[in-house]
């Protein structure tokens, strides 16, 4: 599903990622562990085509992202769901409208939008807040909206960058449970986190990054 071959990325000649080789299979749940500055966000940006690698190759769904034309990038992104630490919700749109955006972008019908947004909001348990603006929601609720937006078009891959970074442990546990449920429906999930509490919850593969290098890999336990 996701393949990285000797991938390096530099910012102002300083390596953010160095010689990363990694394969993530379809339906896997992978946690990318590492301290701040380890290169987790860079790795997710490369996979989501927000950046291009300076060295190496990245295949996402068997497509070499370095060779993708800029006009093809949006179509690849539509097969992915992205979850951010800072939620990245549109402040002037309500919850329903925020979650509906990926479907709007794809030209879905009004009927489809209503049906899928309602399902996504139910899945994250926030359907009663559909008319609220993001500013009226708690951090946990905003993160749920962000997850609903990421799963509303049934993505093949879900990328989450520090999804529990702004949440307390209880809320973080709830969010991780949501990811597990999404993964059980067949979506490949890749979470980047420095929160070691997440590890205990996840029955998936752990990949550890340190100073831009892949330091260790742990196979699923239990």
């Amino acid at each position: 599903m996701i393949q990285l071959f000797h991938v390096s990325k530099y910012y102002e000649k300083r390596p953010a990622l160095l010689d990363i080789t990694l394969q993530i299979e379809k339906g896997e749940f992978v946690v990318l562990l590492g301290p701040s500055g380890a290169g987790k966000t860079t790795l997710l940006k490369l996979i989501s085509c927000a950046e291009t690698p300076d060295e190496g190759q990245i295949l996402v769904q068997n497509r070499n992202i370095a060779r993708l034309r800029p006009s093809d990038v949006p179509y690849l992104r539509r097969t992915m769901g992205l979850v951010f630490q800072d939620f990245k919700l549109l402040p002037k749109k309500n919850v329903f409208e925020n979650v509906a955006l990926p479907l709007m972008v794809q030209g879905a019908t009004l009927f489809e939008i209503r049906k899928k947004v309602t399902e996504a909001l139910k899945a994250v348990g926030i359907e009663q807040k559909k008319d609220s603006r993001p500013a009226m929601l708690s951090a946990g609720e905003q993160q749920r909206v962000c997850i609903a937006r990421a799963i509303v078009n049934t993505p093949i891959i879900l990328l989450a960058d520090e999804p529990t970074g702004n949440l307390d442990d209880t809320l973080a546990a709830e969010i991780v449970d949501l990811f597990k449920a999404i993964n059980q429906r067949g979506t490949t999930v890749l979470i980047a986190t420095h929160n070691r509490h997440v590890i205990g919850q996840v029955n998936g593969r752990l990949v550890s990054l340190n100073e831009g290098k892949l330091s260790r890999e742990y196979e699923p336990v239990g």
Partner: protein
Amino acid sequence: MRRLSYFVAEAVMNIRINRATTVIAVATMAFTLICFGVFLLLYVNLKEVAGSLQNEIKVVVYLADDPSSQGATDWQRRLKAEPEVASVVYISKEQALAEFRAQFPSEQHLLDGLGENPLPASLVLAIAAPFRSSHAVKRLSERLSAVPGVAQVQYSQDWIENLAAVVRYFELGALAVGAVLSVASMTIIANTIRLTLYARKDEIEIMRLIGATRTFINVPYLLEGAMLGTLGGALSLAMLKGGFEFVKLQLASPGRFWGMPSGLNFLPVQLSVLILLAGLVLGCAGSLVSVRELRKPR
């Protein structure tokens, strides 16, 4: 259809959120289009004047003697035979005097002092359409001047030609002013949209990340520019019409104004539509300049 309504809703929302910059952009666009419109108005009316005067070109042939009734008829027949002449009107010495008295009642004492009627008999020639040029009228005038019995030939072609030249200068002026103002208003619209874009930089980034194409992101901004431009165009037309009616009222006087039978004319429908379209196109172009800056490799 659903996308279109989304784009329109987004554009309207942008305009509503950025009210202050919207007002400035619309006002500036209106002002620049007013300047252009004033030039157009002057051009349209001067052209009208030049055209109507061109149609009224008259050559006056003053006779050395006072011809008899038969002599006048002969003169008329002879001049009517000239290819350049469309019609001939004979004005006898008595008629000339009567016309002078009617036109200048306060100057009658000038003629009374002279005793004898000093005004010559004349023939007023209307020029046929194909010969209403400076060259043709001049040639006719020279030919007629050499005819025995003709004292003088007068025509008003020169200043009519000058007026036509002024109209041509106005035409060029309108083009130059239009070009300069177009760039100015485009820049202003571009800056307005740019402010909106900076304010919504994060939102645009989010749209990219959820798979929005460049077109999907850009279209609301292009629509916003088109709306601002059209609003500016409509406002300029309304203000031009108001200003025009005011000036027309001020200049209204009995009789003709500058030889125009129907007074001043407002811009014809085609030119009014042109101003609206100019606003729309300039607005779009301004937006395009701004959204091009959004270009990122990915």
